[in-house]
């Protein structure tokens, strides 16, 4: 540091000049600021966005999940809680009675999706979990996890990858 920098005053003036430039420029170019006016303006979701979870269902509406707890085992946040029960005579041997995901703990890593041997859980709703006013409401039960359908992507990810889009 030379003397000029050590005095600091001149540096302060330089700094003030920089911030002033930003201020004035932005005052007259408000449109060009990168901020989005959420929720009116929204960035398009990337095709492989990991949104809130969805438990997939068979054609008859029953859950594909067999309560194997591999997702709960893989989950690094330990936020999946499953209680299993005997399956129906016509269905799989084991099925979930309780399937809770604590969205406050979830880190959206999608390891649960990867772990599932039955393709029973996906994160393809394209939704962010909405805010809630109690911890209870952030624990998504089977009803919440089957409420929203998958989004249909105008440009499916695999087409992106092979350069067709």
């Amino acid at each position, binding site marked *: 540091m030379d003397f000029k920098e050590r005095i600091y005053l001149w540096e302060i003036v330089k*700094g003030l000049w*920089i911030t002033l430039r*930003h201020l004035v420029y*932005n005052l007259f170019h408000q449109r060009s*600021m990168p901020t989005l*006016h959420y929720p009116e303006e929204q960035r398009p979701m990337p095709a492989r966005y990991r949104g809130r979870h969805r438990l997939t269902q068979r054609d008859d509406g029953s859950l594909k999940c067999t309560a194997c707890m591999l997702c709960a085992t893989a989950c690094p946040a330990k936020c999946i809680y499953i209680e299993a029960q005997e399956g129906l005579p016509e269905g799989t041997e084991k099925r979930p009675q309780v399937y809770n995901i604590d969205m406050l703990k979830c880190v959206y890593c999608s390891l649960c999706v990867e772990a599932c041997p039955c393709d029973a859980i996906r994160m393809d709703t394209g939704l962010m979990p909405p805010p809630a006013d109690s911890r209870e409401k952030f624990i998504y039960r089977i009803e919440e996890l089957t409420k929203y359908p998958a989004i249909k992507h105008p440009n499916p990810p695999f087409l992106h990858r092979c350069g067709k889009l």
Partner: protein
Amino acid sequence: MTIEIPYIAAVLKAIAFPVMALNMIPVLVWIERRGSAFIQNRIGPNRANIGSFTFLGLLHPFADAMKFMFKEPFRPENAHPVFYFLAPALVVIPSLMALAVIPIADHVWVQGHEISMSVTELEYGIAYVFAVASIGVLGIAIAGWASNNKYSLLGGIRSTAQMISYELSLGLSVLGVLLIFGTLDLNELARGQGALLWGVLPKWGVFLQPVGFLLFVVACFAEANRLPFDLPEGDSELVAGYHTEYGGFKFSMFFMGEYVSMVTLASLIATLFFGGWQVPWMTTTALDAHLGELGRTLSQIAAFAVKIGFFLWLFIWVRWTLPRFRYDQLMRLGWKVVLPLALVNILVTALVLLLANGF
């Protein structure tokens, strides 16, 4: 029974001045938020609305005020039952009181009575300001201690040390100006700055005492706990320092205290170093002659407003430009740079005055 004009004027002023100061808070908050947003290439808060009018985000401070008022008055379990509530008042009241002696225009004459344009006019005005302003630190120290939270306590202790260090420099750095003008009365000080220097420059404190001005501004930042000297709050290391445990209206009182003391300090800077209510190159008499008394008063108020407006903006501007000092840097600056410089400044000023006026 007739009520004397001076009494009516005193009551009116005693109401109007604090109200004006408090009303500046929302505007300042708005400028601070939007200004900082633009400095940082953001848009800033612009959502609060009445119907579809957002007034460029001006409603946010009002929404905040409503929120503060209606929040639960909460006391942490182990906080002190009396001092915890006392602290915010101890911060906001002295900063309002300090405003009392700041003149916003020259005296006016109402039906043969001379009325000052400050709440009260004291011969020792500047001493009063410093005396009252130093009570504020008690509020912060008490808040830190009474919250029974380690971060708050650290914040309180920091603020105590910081205030002691910088109050000294604050007082010493203005001594030069006081020596030159030979008065402690702020109105007299302002009036004294109406003359011209070498026939061109207004005889403002800043031109006579440039070093004193710089030191005073630095000390003001430290006094107001504003960045780069906001160590008592130190969000990144102390959460929110002395007011970590405060919420709702009590928090808003700290908030108000900070902004009111910004107003006080900006007015002080303007009065001491920038001629106070003086319109440059125009004395009261000259203005009276051209605009009449009302026009003169209004233009003086406008001049004063412009001046403190600039310094208020400076407070905000600096906050969004400079990073926080480290604690040791703050202390070193206070004791090893600002204080000696202030002393040297007084010495030199006194010598020069002595030489100029003859022994």
